[in-house]
Structures are given as structure tokens and as C-alpha cells.
């Protein structure tokens, strides 16, 4: 039985969080705290429930794909702009992920932000974010996609700078917004290209269905300046769209904002910068699979960027000491993995990894937040250690999340990650001469080792080993920890308030303790899918036609998924077969290395760092991306702005055009004024001269 989806239900899913955000936000000064969090939690919970129902309808009842306009906003020059929904398997999956993680974060926030003055505002923001993300994933046209895209960017800005009195937070949120803006520039160019080309093939349109229908014809066009060969139009459009994804999903070189976004409170790091907003780019590329499949060059570009991000961001996670930033670099690396999957034409695997990653990365962030609360807002891992005894549930859930992240067999991340690596390997078999595929393969393989290493480094430094916090509490404590310069691990230059505190908070003193069940509950709720969801859903979602028509494969690349389908069998056989591949052993090697360096022989990291000083220098400066941005690109942009402002705006437009025209009239009037001599005889004389001239003109006409 396939009932069509109810459009009112879909509208409710999107609008309930908006309404809750409006109530909590507009009345944030007058309503009590319990009202703010109950309204928003009920809104998001209802959205979550309805989303699960819709997902059930889509996946299990084979409901037809819902593609409809809810509200037509305007039609301009033949292009219609509307609010519309496209709900198919991909959308339904994203909706469930977004609302479920959002719900967990809402509940978690009750405990995390309990002491904060901006409590109501925070709930309003995260509800607003849920609305924006839902509009993004449920959209059926580019305009609404862009609206959701920008809206999540705005809410991310608001949330990163939530503690707006801190200069580091303001720096971070501006950085995030501006870097996203650079990506959006490419995105808008891509959308413009879509409109331009759909205008040539059956009417300009922003709707997905029209763009997808025109895709084969667009792929036959070239786009370039007059007289040049130009590039393939589809390649150009896809690369522009991907630049937007690079900004939003923090791929190299537009990744610089994500570590700084850790200035915001931990719940939003979990919600936005792990599970949902950063995955918007991945979602968008998967949604645009009918377009990307026609451009192998674009796919190669995607693959290259993703592989670079996956590996090199992992390296940065090795040397960082801030617990949140390690998880942030881990997110960057995993986003790279998802992008690699997209580049290898394995879109469903990318989405699958997105889903599993959402669960275990949110779990890891929330666990880190729990540790931070327990440590009275201390974030430096060098001051932690041995917390497993005092925070058992946090430790266990963190272990589960880490095991899922590194790809331990049977955990969720194992299936998604290994499938990505297999997809790249398949591409390598199909196209052995493609250098980028080879590069990507090596990157993802080495990345497995690096991921395992930094994840377990985090675990060992935080939860096991010597309880270093006891010594730190005994000695007189300095809040301004950036004065403390370790000789062996000098503070990275670009990091601002990193190992400081999340809040200007008085030290409570006393040993760390585990926070209450509002914090632990979501941790457990997220741990369960981290373990199970991979095994359960892998087969039917990826290979049993789970994604249906939502993802499109071009004939040549279809082979990757077919080959993988042959090899997969079912979850058990895949796991068993994995032991024959090097990946599992790389994971084990990473775990062992972490144990060796941070549990057993803890003096070794310092000595290794001392030997590899230049390498450490490069890593600590984050490959100098921040330095280039701050010292070269930003001043360049500011210089441009200054020129346009002083010379263009003030000088030319104000000075010459506006004031200048007024002054010209004044000058002119000043000259003409002298004709008014006040002497009547002069006026009479000029009348006579005029008469003479007119007479002369008439005469010359009549006499000739």
C-alpha cells in the first residue's frame, strides 16, 4: 500500500521548530526557563516523530516521491520562486537524522547551559537552526535550498558568537560567516548557471526536476568567453556548486572556520558542526547526483579535495591539546571521507557515512561537553586523565563513539568507512590511470591509521592514565592558561583562547563529577545507533534499492555500486571479509600506537616532537592557512574595500556625481545670475536683440 505523503504533515515538520523558536526567541526576556525549553523540545520532538513516520512511509510503505509546491512566492521573468518540498528516501533519511540529533542536543542543553544567562536565547537559536536545516533538506528548488543554506549559516554565526562579549567568539563567528560567504559565491554562480542553461532547454527554472531533466543536454554544452574553447558547462556548474559545499562542509581550503567555531558552546558543536550543518554540502552534492554524474572532471575535483581534507586534517588532530578541537579536526577529516565517497560516485555510501557519522560524532562532542562540565569548564587534555573512574557513563559512551569512529568491526562507522575505502579501490580498478583516484586511495588508507591514533590519544589522555587534574588542583591555578608555556608543546600560534575556559567561571574546586541525567541521557541515546545502525541498515539501504530514485547513477559509474553489491553480501559476510583487508590492521596499529605513546611510555611524545621540530611547526600553524588568510587575503580584501569606499564611493559617486552635480548647478547659476542686472534698459535691449535674431532667421528662410 503506498499512500501519498501528506503535505500538511511535511509543513508541520518544518514549521513546528520555527514556531517554537519564535516563542522562545521573541519573548526570551519574559518567559521562564522551563517554558523556553519545553516549547522548543516539544516542537522538535514532534518534528522528530513526524519525520520518523514519514521515513517509515517512504522506506517501508513505498510511498511515492512527494514533489510539490506549498507556496508560490513570485514569478519573475519566467523563473518561479516557491516554497516546495521534495521528499524521497534521501530527504527522509536526512530529516530523521537532523531532528533526532537536534532533539538529543535540546535535551542535553538543559543540563549544559543551566548556569547561563542566555538560556532562552540558546534554545530559540537551536530550534531556528532545526527549521533552517529542514527547509534545506526538504527543498525541491534551488532558491529554497539557498535560503536554507544561508539560514543555517546565519544561525551558525549567531551560535558561535553566542557569548558575544568575548572577542575570540566574535572573531570566530565572523570568520565562519565570511569563509562560508566565499563558498556561497561559488554556489550562487552554480545556481545562476543552472538557470541560464535551463532557459535554453525548456524554460528557465530553479526546480530540481527541470535541472535534472536538462542535465544531459547541459553536459553537451561548453561555457566560455568568446573565441576561447571554454570548459564543459556541466563541469563548470558542478565545480561552482561544489565550491559552495566546500565552504559549508569545511573542505580544504575553506576549512579554516571549523576549528575556530569551537568557541561556541559544545551542544552546538555537536549539532551544527558535526551532524547537520556541515553535512549540508555533502547532502547537496548527493542531491545533485544527476548533475555530477555527467561531469567526470568535477567528480575528480571533488575526490581530490576530499582526499586532501581527509588526510591532512587528521594530522592536525594529532598534535592538538584542546579536547573539542581534536573532535573538530576529526569532523573535518570525516567530512573529507564523505567527499571522497561522493567523488568516487558512491553517493549512497557518502550519505550512509553521513548518517553514522552524525550519530557518533554528536556523541563524541556531547561526551566532550560532559567532560568539560565535569572538569568545571577545563578543556586542556593535558590537565585531564583518569576520569574513567569518576565519569563512567561518559567514558563508556565516549569509548563507543570512538570505536565507531575509527571503524571497528560491527560498529556503525566500520561499515560506512570501509565501504568508502572499497569504493575508492573499485574506482582504482576501473580507472587505473587516474592519478587522483590513486592519490585518494592512499589518503584514505593512511587516514584510517591517523584517525585511530588521534581518537585513542584523546581517550587515553582524558579517561585513563594518571589523574593529572589532581596535581593541577593542588597547585595554585591560573585561569589565564595561555600564559603557561610548555617547553615541549608550545602553544600553537594561531589559536586564540584555545586552552582557556569556555566561560569565565569560578573554579568550583573539588574533584570532577559526572553531570546529571539530562546530560547522560542523550549520550546513551546516541550511543545505541552508533553501534547498531550500521549493521542494520547497510544492506537494504545501500544495495537493496533503499535510496530508490533519489540518487542517480550514470551508466559508466554505476559499475562501482554494482561491484560493491557483489562483494557486500550481507553485514556478517562483509565483516568477516574485512579481516582479509589491510584496513582493520591499520586500525589496530593506530590503537596500539596511541596506547604505546599515551599510556605506556608517556615520555615518548615529547621526544618525538623534539626530533621532528619543523614538522611540528608546520602542523601547529595549521599548514599556514590561517596565517595566509589573516596576513594576506583579509588585508587585501580590506584594502579593496577601502579603495572602493574612499575613491569610488566618497570620491567619485559622492564627490563628483552627487555633490558635483549640485555644485555645477550652483556654479552655473552663479554665472547666469549676472544676466539679471536689474537694469530694465538692458532687458529691453536683449529683447530687441532677440527680435533681431528671430527676424534674421525668418528672413533667411523666406528669402532663400
Amino acid at each position: 500500500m503506498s499512500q501519498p505523503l501528506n503535505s500538511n504533515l511535511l509543513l508541520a515538520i518544518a514549521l513546528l521548530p520555527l514556531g517554537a523558536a519564535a516563542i522562545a526567541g521573541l519573548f526570551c526576556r519574559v518567559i521562564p526557563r522551563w517554558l523556553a525549553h519545553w516549547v522548543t523540545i516539544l516542537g522538535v520532538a514532534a518534528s522528530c516523530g513526524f519525520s520518523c513516520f514519514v521515513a517509515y512511509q517512504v522506506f517501508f510503505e513505498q510511498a511515492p516521491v512527494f514533489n510539490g509546491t506549498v507556496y508560490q512566492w513570485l514569478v519573475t521573468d519566467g523563473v518561479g520562486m516557491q516554497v516546495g518540498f521534495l521528499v524521497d528516501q534521501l530527504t527522509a533519511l536526512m530529516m530523521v537524522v537532523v531532528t533526532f540529533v537536534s532533539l538529543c542536543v535540546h535535551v542535553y542543553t538543559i543540563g549544559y547551559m543551566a548556569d547561563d544567562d542566555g538560556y532562552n536565547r540558546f534554545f530559540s537559536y537551536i530550534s531556528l537552526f532545526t527549521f533552517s536545516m529542514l527547509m534545506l533538506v526538504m527543498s525541491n528548488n534551488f532558491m529554497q535550498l539557498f535560503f536554507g543554506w544561508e539560514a543555517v549559516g546565519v544561525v551558525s554565526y549567531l551560535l558561535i558568537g553566542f557569548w558575544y562579549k568575548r572577542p575570540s567568539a566574535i572573531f570566530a563567528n565572523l570568520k565562519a560567516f565570511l569563509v562560508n560567504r566565499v563558498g556561497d559565491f561559488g554556489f550562487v554562480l552554480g545556481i545562476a548557471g543552472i538557470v541560464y542553461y535551463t532557459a535554453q532547454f525548456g524554460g528557465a527554472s530553479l526546480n530540481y526536476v527541470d535541472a535534472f531533466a536538462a542535465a544531459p543536454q547541459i553536459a553537451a554544452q561548453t561555457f566560455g568567453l568568446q573565441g576561447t574553447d571554454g570548459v564543459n558547462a556541466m563541469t563548470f556548474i558542478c565545480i561552482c556548486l561544489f565550491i559552495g559545499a566546500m565552504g559549508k562542509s569545511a573542505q580544504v581550503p575553506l576549512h579554516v572556520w571549523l576549528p575556530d567555531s569551537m568557541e561556541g558552546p559544545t551542544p552546538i558543536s555537536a549539532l551544527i558542526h558535526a551532524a547537520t550543518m556541515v553535512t549540508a554540502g555533502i547532502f547537496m552534492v548527493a542531491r545533485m547526483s544527476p548533475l555530477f554524474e555527467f561531469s567526470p572532471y568535477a567528480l575528480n575535483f571533488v575526490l581530490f579535495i576530499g582526499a586532501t581534507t581527509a588526510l591532512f586534517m587528521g594530522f592536525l588532530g594529532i598534535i592538538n591539546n584542546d579536547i573539542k578541537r581534536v573532535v573538530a579536526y576529526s569532523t573535518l577529516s570525516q567530512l573529507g571521507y564523505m567527499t571522497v565517497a561522493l567523488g568516487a560516485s558512491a553517493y549512497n555510501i557518502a550519505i550512509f557515512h553521513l548518517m553514522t557519522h552524525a550519530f557518533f560524532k554528536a556523541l563524541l562532542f556531547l561526551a566532550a561537553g560532559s567532560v568539560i562540565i565535569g572538569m568545571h569548564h577545563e578543556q586542556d587534555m593535558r590537565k585531564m586523565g583518569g576520569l574513567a573512574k569518576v565519569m563512567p557513563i561518559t567514558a563508556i559512551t565516549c569509548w563507543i563513539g570512538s570505536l565507531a569512529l575509527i571503524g571497528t568491526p560491527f560498529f556503525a562507522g566500520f561499515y560506512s568507512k570501509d565501504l568508502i575505502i572499497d569504493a575508492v579501490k573499485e574506482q582504482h580498478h576501473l580507472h587505473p590511470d587516474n592519478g587522483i583516484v590513486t592519490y585518494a586511495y592512499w589518503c584514505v588508507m593512511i587516514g584510517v591509521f591517523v584517525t585511530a591514533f588521534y581518537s585513542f590519544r584523546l581517550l587515553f589522555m582524558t579517561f585513563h592514565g594518571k589523574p593529572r587534574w589532581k596535581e593541577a588542583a593542588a597547585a595554585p591555578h591560573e585561569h589565564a592558561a595561555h600564559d603557561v608555556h610548555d617547553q615541549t608543546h608550545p602553544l600553537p600560534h594561531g589559536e586564540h583562547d584555545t586552552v582557556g575556559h569556555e566561560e569565565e567561571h569560578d573554579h568550583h574546586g573539588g574533584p570532577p563529577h559526572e553531570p546529571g541525567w539530562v546530560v547522560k541521557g542523550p549520550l546513551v541515546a546516541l550511543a545505541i545507533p552508533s553501534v547498531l545502525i550500521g549493521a542494520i541498515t547497510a544492506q537494504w539501504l545501500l544495495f537493496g534499492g533503499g535510496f530508490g530514485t533519489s540518487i542517480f547513477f550514470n551508466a559508466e559509474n554505476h559499475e562501482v555500486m554494482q561491484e560493491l553489491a557483489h562483494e557486500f553480501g550481507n553485514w556478517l559476510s562483509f565483516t568477516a571479509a574485512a579481516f582479509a583487508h589491510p584496513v582493520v590492521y591499520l586500525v589496530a596499529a593506530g590503537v596500539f600506537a596511541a596506547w604505546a605513546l599515551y599510556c605506556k611510555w608517556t615520555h615518548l611524545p615529547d621526544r618525538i616532537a623534539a626530533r621532528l621540530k619543523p614538522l611540528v611547526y608546520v602542523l601547529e600553524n595549521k599548514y599556514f592557512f590561517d596565517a595566509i588568510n589573516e596576513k594576506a587575503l583579509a588585508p587585501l580584501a580590506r584594502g579593496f574595500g577601502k579603495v572602493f569606499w574612499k575613491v569610488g564611493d566618497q570620491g567619485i559617486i559622492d564627490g563628483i556625481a552627487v555633490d558635483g552635480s549640485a555644485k555645477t548647478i550652483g556654479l552655473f547659476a552663479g554665472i547666469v545670475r549676472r544676466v539679471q542686472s536689474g537694469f530694465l534698459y538692458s532687458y529691453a535691449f536683449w529683447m530687441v536683440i532677440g527680435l533681431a535674431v528671430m527676424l534674421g532667421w525668418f528672413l533667411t528662410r523666406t528669402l532663400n
Partner: protein
Amino acid sequence: MLVEVLFWVFAAILSVAALAMITVRNPVHAALLLVLCFFTSAAIWLLMEAEFLAVVLILVYVGAVMVLFLFVVMMLDINIEEVRARVTRYAFFGAIVAGVVVFEIVSVVWSRSGAEAGRVAQSLPADHSNTAELGKLLYTEYVYPFELAAVLLLVAIVAAISLTMRKRAGLKQQNISKQVAVRREDRVRIVKMPAEGGASAAAPAEKGP
């Protein structure tokens, strides 16, 4: 033949007198030259057999208007020196414009020298009365404009007088409206004084109104 010669003579005198009028320095001389202009133009009109207008020109224009001009010229205490100075500064430009105007008009006129402009006046019988002809028209068809012209002259009289009349200083006149609008308080003031009786030391108390 004689008529044409006379016409040329008078026309020459007229032009020269007009030119002289605008260039002489003494305003009295200028007025008198204008009188000469009028006389010669009256002569020309006589030659054109418009005798009524010629006489009217002399009587009204010379007899009244120019006399008025001479009155004013002689009455005003004009500084001759100032008037004399620098009259030739703009002469060149003025002459140019005047020359252009004359040239244009003459060119129009001479271009139609054939039939139209070369017409001559028809000769009239000897007892034709120009005055009677004008009178007939004036008192029948143009009576209303005639009366209006009379009113116009009245208006001119009134205007001229009201402009120039000066009030004699120290002249007392009655302002009737002020006389009627006067109030008791402005005119009468009651002063109370006790009756004087004997050499009492009481000082008289005065009470104001």
C-alpha cells in the same frame, strides 16, 4: 516731384535730429531736438495728406508732452557733469544692433519692391476732409473706445497726481473716524479734592480716576 523732394528733405532732418537727440549731452538740447523730430514728422504726415494727425501731433505731443518733458528737465536739479560722462562706451554695440535691425527690415521691404511695397497713395480730391472722415468713424463705430480713452486719461491724471503729491508739513487735519471713536477714559479724569474750609492742616487728598 516736389512732394518727393520735400519728403527726402524732411526725412533727412528727422533722422539727423533723432541721432543727435541720443548723442547730445545736454538734456534740454535733447528735448528740443525731439521737438524738432515731431515737427518734421508732422510735416511728412502733411505731405501724406493726413493733416488731422499732423496737427494733433503738434498740439498734443509737442504742445503738451514735450512741454511736460521740458518742465521736468528744468525742474530737476540734474548734475550735468555726471550725465555727460561716458556715453560712448556702449555706442558701438548699440549701433551694431540698430544696424542689424534696420538691415533686416529694409531687406524685407526692398525685396517686395515690385508691386506691393512700391505702391503710392491714391490722390484724393481737393475738398476731401481727413478730419471729417476720421470724425465719422470715431463717433459711430469707435465711440466706446473713445470713451475708454477718456477714462484712461482720467486715470493717468489721478495717478500722476497721487504719485507726486506731497503733504505740507504741519498741516492740521481732522481725522473724523478717530474723533468718533474716542472714549470717555481718554478725555475725562475725575480728581477728588476735599472742600477747603479754614486753615486746617489736612493736606488735600487727590484721588485719581
